[in-house]
């Protein structure tokens, strides 16, 4: 539960604070007023990364140019994240944490739901890998470090493969790192998809109230235990292409509706439902893994686009007692009596309590 949030020089916000006391909240405002940035700041505070693509540097407000600060009272601890001059300063309850993993280990879990989620279904594999990575790094202690090392080693290896002649002794040194970290990713992703699958199917049928079955399947380029051999076999092809062509960075998460690929065969409505089902599955899985601290749900501007039935089905399926923060441009869909919440107006980087008109 997020009790309070403090922002300084984050995106369009100067000095802002928000007292939620762990309650649900709705943020109303026109476009480009800062609604999404509030949710984004919470995601950055808790996970140190943004659901929107982009670097931390871009999140510094134009006025400041120096850096930003996000603080928040999560559950029973105060988390602070300061960023400036390419330096990150993390602290929990006032004591500085040097290692990112220490900080993330004491932070909270996050589910982000937004309009971009449709890309999970009809976009490129990269988005689906990022979906797995975002959950994986929240539930497995070794996931994020393996991912970062794997990515860095892949970049270095690709860089070496572009040399002529290829310096194989160096490439092979990186191949060993790719295997070491890549096998961790393969094992964890396999485990993760198995955990998610029943929730995806369940959420899909609750949302669509139909008999069709949504299913997900992990399709790695090289399966667990075979990465070393696959990399060995693709040496020549790698050298020709100047890049590493097998490994977890090419994995796919197959999405199917009744056995047909959702991205090509699903109607727009089915695809939207599937995208929601993936995020609901994430929410339920995170809630199930940590009963004491439910994930916070950051729901960005999707309620207006759903019909009443789906909206209610969605609200009903969210894990109980998890805190929901919702942005919207208009409140006329407000069957908000379903959620007891505070309502805020967001205008030009200013937050105020909503005045009923």
């Amino acid at each position: 539960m997020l009790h309070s949030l403090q922002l300084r020089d984050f995106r369009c916000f100067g000095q802002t604070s928000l007292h939620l006391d762990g309650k649900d909240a709705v943020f109303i405002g026109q476009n480009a007023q800062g609604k999404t940035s509030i949710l984004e700041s919470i995601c950055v505070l808790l996970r140190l990364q943004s659901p929107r693509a982009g670097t931390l540097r871009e999140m510094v407000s134009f006025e400041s140019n120096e850096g930003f600060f996000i603080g928040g009272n999560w559950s029973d601890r105060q988390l602070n994240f300061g960023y400036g001059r390419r330096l990150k300063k993390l602290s929990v309850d006032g004591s500085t944490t040097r290692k990112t993993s220490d900080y993330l280990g004491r932070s909270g879990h996050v589910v982000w739901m937004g309009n971009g989620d449709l890309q999970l279904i009809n976009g490129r594999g990269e988005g689906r890998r990022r979906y797995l990575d975002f959950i994986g790094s929240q539930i497995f202690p070794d996931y994020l470090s393996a991912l970062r090392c794997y990515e860095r080693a892949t970049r270095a290896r690709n860089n070496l493969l572009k040399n002529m002649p290829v310096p194989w002794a160096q490439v092979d040194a990186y191949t060993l790192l790719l295997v070491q970290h890549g096998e961790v990713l393969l094992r964890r992703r396999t485990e993760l998809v198995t955990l998610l699958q029943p929730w995806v199917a369940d959420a899909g049928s609750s949302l669509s109230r139909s008999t069709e079955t949504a299913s997900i399947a992990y399709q790695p380029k090289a399966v667990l235990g075979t990465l070393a051999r696959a990399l060995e076999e693709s040496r020549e092809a790698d050298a020709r292409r100047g890049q590493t062509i097998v490994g977890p960075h090419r994995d796919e998460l197959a999405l199917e509706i009744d056995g047909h690929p959702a991205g090509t065969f699903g109607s727009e409505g089915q695809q939207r439902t599937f995208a929601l089902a993936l995020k609901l599955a994430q929410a339920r899985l995170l809630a199930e893994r940590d009963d004491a601290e439910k994930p916070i749900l950051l729901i960005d501007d999707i309620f207006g686009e759903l019909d009443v039935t789906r909206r209610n089905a969605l609200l009903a399926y969210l894990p109980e007692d998890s805190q929901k923060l919702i942005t919207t441009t208009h409140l006329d869909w407000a069957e908000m009596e379903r959620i007891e919440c505070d309502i805020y107006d967001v205008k030009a980087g200013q937050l105020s309590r909503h005045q009923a008109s």
Partner: protein
Amino acid sequence: MPRIAYPEPILRLISGLKSLPGVGPRSAERIAVWMLGGGKEKADAIAQAITEAREGIARCEECGFFLLQENPCPLCSDPERQGDTICVVEQPTDILPIERTGAFTGLYHALGGRLSPLDNVTPQDLRISPLISRVQKRRVSEVILALGSDVEGEATAHYLAGIFREKEGLQVTRLAQGLPAGGGLEHADELTLLRALDGRRGMG
């Protein structure tokens, strides 16, 4: 109106100081002004110390550690040290912490960095061929790789292990990873514990 600026020698001093590691433009300016004012005598002493260190200090051709010009290396020429074990480190400064443990009595070899294709550091930029010839020349039975545990450090370790793999009777080892000494489990983060669990060993 003419723009007022520092005279040329001061500007040169500031730009020189600015190029030092960890010194920004504002600190450089402050130090320069201090050197010309209150810190005058100290500045002279520092200038002299820099010249003496530049002229009087050399690197050992063998291990890469600092030594006084014309003098034998206190590490490599010590007859008490075991010549059949070489501990490979990234920087000469990494030798001191290992030496302070008092547990290692072999020889050292500082590479002068680690491989990093992304920063354009290749094997030719490091003291790798001197290491190979040292291992060939002496009867070395163990090479200990005491490199960093980040991606570049590990890649360098794998690269060196690959080179020495073929050599008969030579054992290549690396430092263990795991729990900090003297700490309870509750102080270790999950990742450290996981590594420690992976690297567990049998008892008795």
